[in-house]
């Protein structure tokens, strides 16, 4: 039974089924209360968690999003059930922290991770095209480094507690949320105040975590594998996610094509492109998109856990220091284009520079 399931999930139909599930429920979670075109967004939801824990003071984005713990715990359940949970660490963890930090800076410049870029496009937000183009450019640069010998080195097997750090952290977050721990911060307006019912979000996320652990669903890997070896396996899952989310949005009347008046988005094209280029490069150098890093951390990969902590730290810094993009706004009937502050621009450029330094210097010939 386990072998049959493992085989199915490794097939193209397995990854397509996973992509469809994520797309359908990514769109539905928005309809059920999550912010528009943000049914699932790993970067945004980690940013909300950072806010809820008081790591930043942006009052409109503070909430313990249950989807993030659900992803990690769903992945852990799958890994334990199929005997794949393995505590491991030691592959340049500090570099991974910095990559996570700047991946978040890039994603928040765009206002979303690759998952949200797909969901934004599925809702008609054409700014996502710039983001996806930037993401592809960043991944292509990362592939160039991979081909030139870039590596963060080997991880090693470790004791069980090392692999449990992220699942336990996520379980604690869930307990704080469900018991209504009074010190948690919660937005009273803005995206952080909008949420689907906890039980629905958590259930969907656990299933996503389970499926994604089995199928190795990865939005960055999808593009990377096409560029690196013309392998369309993962990209068929991401395509299924896009199509299914679009169809659900269409059925619910939630598609509005255009660049302007898009929810939680800005139309500053160059920073949509460069923000996601930074995120794509950082994800490639770290070996997985933000979702994949969560799923890996659920199966015992403490290096991925470090990347996730880097993202959460980056989210805190992004909002404390004004690095995050600001959405377009209506001012006296006219659209005021949002985008990045001078500090945000500096942070994205610094992130690109740091990633390039890693790409050019972290090299090793492995035999």
């Amino acid at each position, binding site marked *: 039974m386990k072998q049959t399931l*493992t085989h199915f999930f*490794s097939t193209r139909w397995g990854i397509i089924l996973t992509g469809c599930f994520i797309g359908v429920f990514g769109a539905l979670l928005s309809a059920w209360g999550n912010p528009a075109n943000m049914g699932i967004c790993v970067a945004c939801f980690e940013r909300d968690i950072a806010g809820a824990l008081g790591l930043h003071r942006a009052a409109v984005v503070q909430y313990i999003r249950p989807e993030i713990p659900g992803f990690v715990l769903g992945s852990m359940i799958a890994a334990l059930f*199929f005997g*794949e949970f*393995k505590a*491991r660490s*030691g*592959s340049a963890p500090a570099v991974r922290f910095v990559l996570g930090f700047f991946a978040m800076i890039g994603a928040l410049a765009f206002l979303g991770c690759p998952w949200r870029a797909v969901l934004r496009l599925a809702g008609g937000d054409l700014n996502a095209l710039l983001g996806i183009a930037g993401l592809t450019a960043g991944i292509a640069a990362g592939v160039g480094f*991979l*081909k030139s010998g870039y*590596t*963060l*080195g*080997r*991880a*090693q*097997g470790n004791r069980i507690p090392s692999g449990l750090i992220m699942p336990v952290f996520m379980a604690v977050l869930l307990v704080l949320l469900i018991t209504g721990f009074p010190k948690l911060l919660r937005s009273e307006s803005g995206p952080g105040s909008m949420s689907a019912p906890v039980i629905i979000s958590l259930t969907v996320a656990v299933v996503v975590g389970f499926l994604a652990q089995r199928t*190795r669903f990865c939005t960055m*890997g999808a593009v*990377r*594998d096409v560029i*690196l*070896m*013309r*392998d369309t*396996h993962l990209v068929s899952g991401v395509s299924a996610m896009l199509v299914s989310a679009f169809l659900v949005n269409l059925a619910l009347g939630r598609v509005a094509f255009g660049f302007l008046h898009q929810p939680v988005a800005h139309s500053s094209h160059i920073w949509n492109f460069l923000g996601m280029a930074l995120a794509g490069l950082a994800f490639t150098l770290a*070996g*997985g998109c933000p979702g994949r890093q969560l799923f890996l951390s659920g199966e015992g990969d403490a*290096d991925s856990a470090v990347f996730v902590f880097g993202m959460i730290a980056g989210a805190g810094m992004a909002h404390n220091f004004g690095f995050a993009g600001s959405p377009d706004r209506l001012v006296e009937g006219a659209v005021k284009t949002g985008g990045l502050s001078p500090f945000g621009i500096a942070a994205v450029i610094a992130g690109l520079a740091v990633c390039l330094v890693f790409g050019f210097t972290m090299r090793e010939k*492995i*035999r």
Partner: protein
Amino acid sequence: MKEIDARGLSCPHPVILVTTAIKEGEFPFTLIVDTVTARENVIRAVKMKHCSVEYSPEGDGFRLEINTV
């Protein structure tokens, strides 16, 4: 027989190592990986290159033997 140790390496490095070895053309050769993910990715990459692959458990991981069809 050439043996490549890809244990501890995260994706896509095992795949890069195997495709490089296939290009070099020294068949058969073995590749050792330590996760099911790496095993699956390598098998898919090898099949795309029209080579054959068989695997067996080895310690905590797997030994894959790659050959021409």
